[in-house]
């Protein structure tokens, strides 16, 4: 009895190993609906931010219909930053887990996040605004909880939502099965949002996958004077 109690105690204290390469898992053909992440909660922006956001989305939709899509920073080879880097098309992410630090490398643009384990978070005003901010992590049972602050305001969020320098992002990362990972991302921003919103990304393990380098050296896309994406052509 004592042995069983001790064994389960030890098990509870040993966090799962998330190390490996993970590919975004999209619901759809061939997907197991039981493993699909829950749908995102509504994004409710404060009126001051909602108006320009809606206007930009309408302009994007209109331009896309015209065949002159509006570009974003990524067109100019500027990385996505956190949190958008966590879901770029089908590009995989590699997790390297050590007790003191968990490192997440995403393939598109070779972006890197470092999560410092069991350290107190810094005050927001002490973090220089950047693409990845400052992340600290703890284990809540089998779930990795990551707290991130210090994301630059120009780094747009989920569905290109704006944010202030007061944004705080909380992630709950856990293995749903041995080969399926969910990252539940909650964005809180008392300046921009009426209330926090949550969305969940799913990943499938890619055994033996070797991450491919991504240096954005040959960018032929550019933005014209209207902000539309165009392609440079080569002469003979």
């Amino acid at each position: 009895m004592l042995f069983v109690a001790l064994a389960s105690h030890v098990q509870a204290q040993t966090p799962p190993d998330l190390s490996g390469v993970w590919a975004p898992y999209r619901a759809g053909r061939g997907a197991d609906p039981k493993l699909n992440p829950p749908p995102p909660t509504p994004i409710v922006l404060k009126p001051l931010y909602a108006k320009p956001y809606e206007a930009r989305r309408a302009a994007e939709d209109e331009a896309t219909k015209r065949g002159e899509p509006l570009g974003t920073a990524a067109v100019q080879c500027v990385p996505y930053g956190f949190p958008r880097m966590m879901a770029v098309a089908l590009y995989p992410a590699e997790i390297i887990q050590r007790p003191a630090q968990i490192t997440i490398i995403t393939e598109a643009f070779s972006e890197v996040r470092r999560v410092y384990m069991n350290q107190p978070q810094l005050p927001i005003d002490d973090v220089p605004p950047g693409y990845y901010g400052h992340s600290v992590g703890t284990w809540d049972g089998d779930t990795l909880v990551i707290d991130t602050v210090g994301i630059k305001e120009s780094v747009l969020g989920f569905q290109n939502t704006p944010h202030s320098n007061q944004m705080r992002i909380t992630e709950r990362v856990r293995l749903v099965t041995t080969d399926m990972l969910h990252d539940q991302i909650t964005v809180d921003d008392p300046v921009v949002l009426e209330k926090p919103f949550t969305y969940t990304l799913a990943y499938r393990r890619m055994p033996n996958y070797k991450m491919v380098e991504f240096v954005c050296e040959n960018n032929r896309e550019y933005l014209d004077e209207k902000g539309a994406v165009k392609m440079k052509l080569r002469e003979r």
Partner: protein
Amino acid sequence: MKTRLYVGVLLCAALVAAHPVLAHHSFAMFDTAKRLTMSGTVTGFEWTNPHVYIELDVPGEKGAVKHWSVELGSPSILMQAGWKFSDVKVNDKISVVLNPLRSGEAGGLLVTATVRDGRVLGNGPGRVAGQP
């Protein structure tokens, strides 16, 4: 009515399939409803990010040659669809199917390429949902 619905479903499937290829920009500058097939001589094959490019000289009427720039996915996405960096070389004779630029310029987005050994390669993604 049924036919229209079917076409709609196909179009949606095509959009969903095409989107991941272009991670860093929308593909709306290409006319994905239109397909051009052309054969020519490769003058350049750039295995680079954010995109791979095939430069192609396509012979026309009376010996005139038109040059086309063809955009592919990125090396990562193409490798997952079965491509190798050495599948196309300068001076290869290949044929391509592409979605042309809406602007009418001689550029497009690759749909398929028939490479020198006869294999037909797509533009990724080779993976369907849930399969690495």
